[in-house]
């Protein structure tokens, strides 16, 4: 990973997770919760924050223990560390709001197998210092939250005509029920990916046009 050399500034370390290496839209990591619990913006935010918290804590612990973890047993160790924090989050959410816990269901427990967290532990935290790993986790976590909110927002607005539970589009809006059901998750993500593809295409088109103009 060439972008992850220690030469990058702290700011870049944080920003890369939000934009250039966005975990959902660019790297396509951790897709299961992205699709499953984004039927409303509120659920999406809660899930994003829970994942970001686990990511931050596990990155910090992994990077501070990185010289003690034997190489052969590293994946198992990482998963154990992650599972510990997920259990903490699960009980924390139960204590805060039982309703939220019911809405997210088993997907809180399933943060354990979110490849984003294991991926960051393996690719970044096991090779870098504590401060840098924390920054990386914060950036990736923020990118993940933003991506979930993008999806959850679109799905809630189209599927229920509201955002964070507040009615937005008025009474005459006929909700697109399909957007709050499972297929809507796939369609919303497809829509965002199409948007990004289209933007990349327009930009590439402009660049070739400029390149053709320049010599003449």
């Amino acid at each position, binding site marked *: 990973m060439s972008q992850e050399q220690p030469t990058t500034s702290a700011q870049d370390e944080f920003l890369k997770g939000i934009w250039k290496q966005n975990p959902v839209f660019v790297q396509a990591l951790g897709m*299961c919760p992205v699709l499953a619990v984004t039927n409303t913006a509120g659920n999406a935010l809660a899930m994003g924050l829970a994942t970001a918290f686990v990511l931050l804590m596990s990155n910090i612990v992994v990077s501070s223990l990185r010289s003690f973890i034997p190489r052969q047993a590293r994946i198992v160790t990482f*998963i154990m560390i992650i599972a510990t924090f997920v259990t903490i989050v699960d009980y924390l959410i139960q204590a805060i709001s039982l309703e939220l816990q019911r809405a997210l269901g088993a997907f809180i427990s399933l943060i354990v197998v979110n490849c984003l967290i294991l991926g960051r532990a393996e690719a970044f935290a096991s090779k870098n210092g504590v401060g840098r790993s924390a920054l990386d986790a914060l950036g990736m976590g923020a990118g993940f939250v933003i991506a979930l909110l993008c999806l959850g927002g679109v799905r809630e607005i189209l599927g229920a005509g509201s955002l964070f539970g507040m009615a937005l589009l008025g009474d005459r809006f006929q909700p697109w029920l399909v957007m709050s059901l499972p297929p809507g998750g796939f369609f919303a993500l*497809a829509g965002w990916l199409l948007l990004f593809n289209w933007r990349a*295409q327009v930009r590439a088109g402009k660049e070739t046009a400029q390149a053709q103009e320049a010599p003449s």
Partner: protein
Amino acid sequence: MNTDSLGPIFLNACLVNNFVLAYFLGICPFLGVTGRVGSAVRMGGAVTFVMAVNSICACGIQALLTFIDAPYLKLISFIAVIASTVQVVEMFIRRVSPALFRTLGIFLPLITTNCAILGEALFQTNKGYSFTQSLVYALGAGAGFTLALALMAGLREKLELSRTPEAVKGAALTMILAGLLSICFMGFAGIGN
């Protein structure tokens, strides 16, 4: 204790609440290894097998954890068991059938981080299934997973030959396909209840 009979449990896990298309579990292999029908079916077979073995283990762990009254260890012990099951299954297949091992080869380690396996173990304990019910549930979930992967791979093979707009190619097209498949599977709602 849950008293559902076995037939509805199987249908429910396989079609009505298909793990991939209704619960969004195991999306990574669903997007990753559905390029060819052959590899999709083999991946489905491997997942089904691990799921069934793991379901048996999960039953034992659940009984043990209830016995020592330590429910907070559930997640950690489940994931540890899954990782070791995958390892054992890998060694077993390598010894018994090298040919099968070569075809499954790369897929086996990937199964550890497949959320469908952990999800199945969590759902069966949440629903309070008995040993037989759990096993049937695991087999149904595996069959549904294989079905979804095979359908997706078939569609993608066909689409390779057709002309698609430049912007749609790649992940976006797969997502649209998955959405349409998911709508189709919603038609099964109500069966087996």
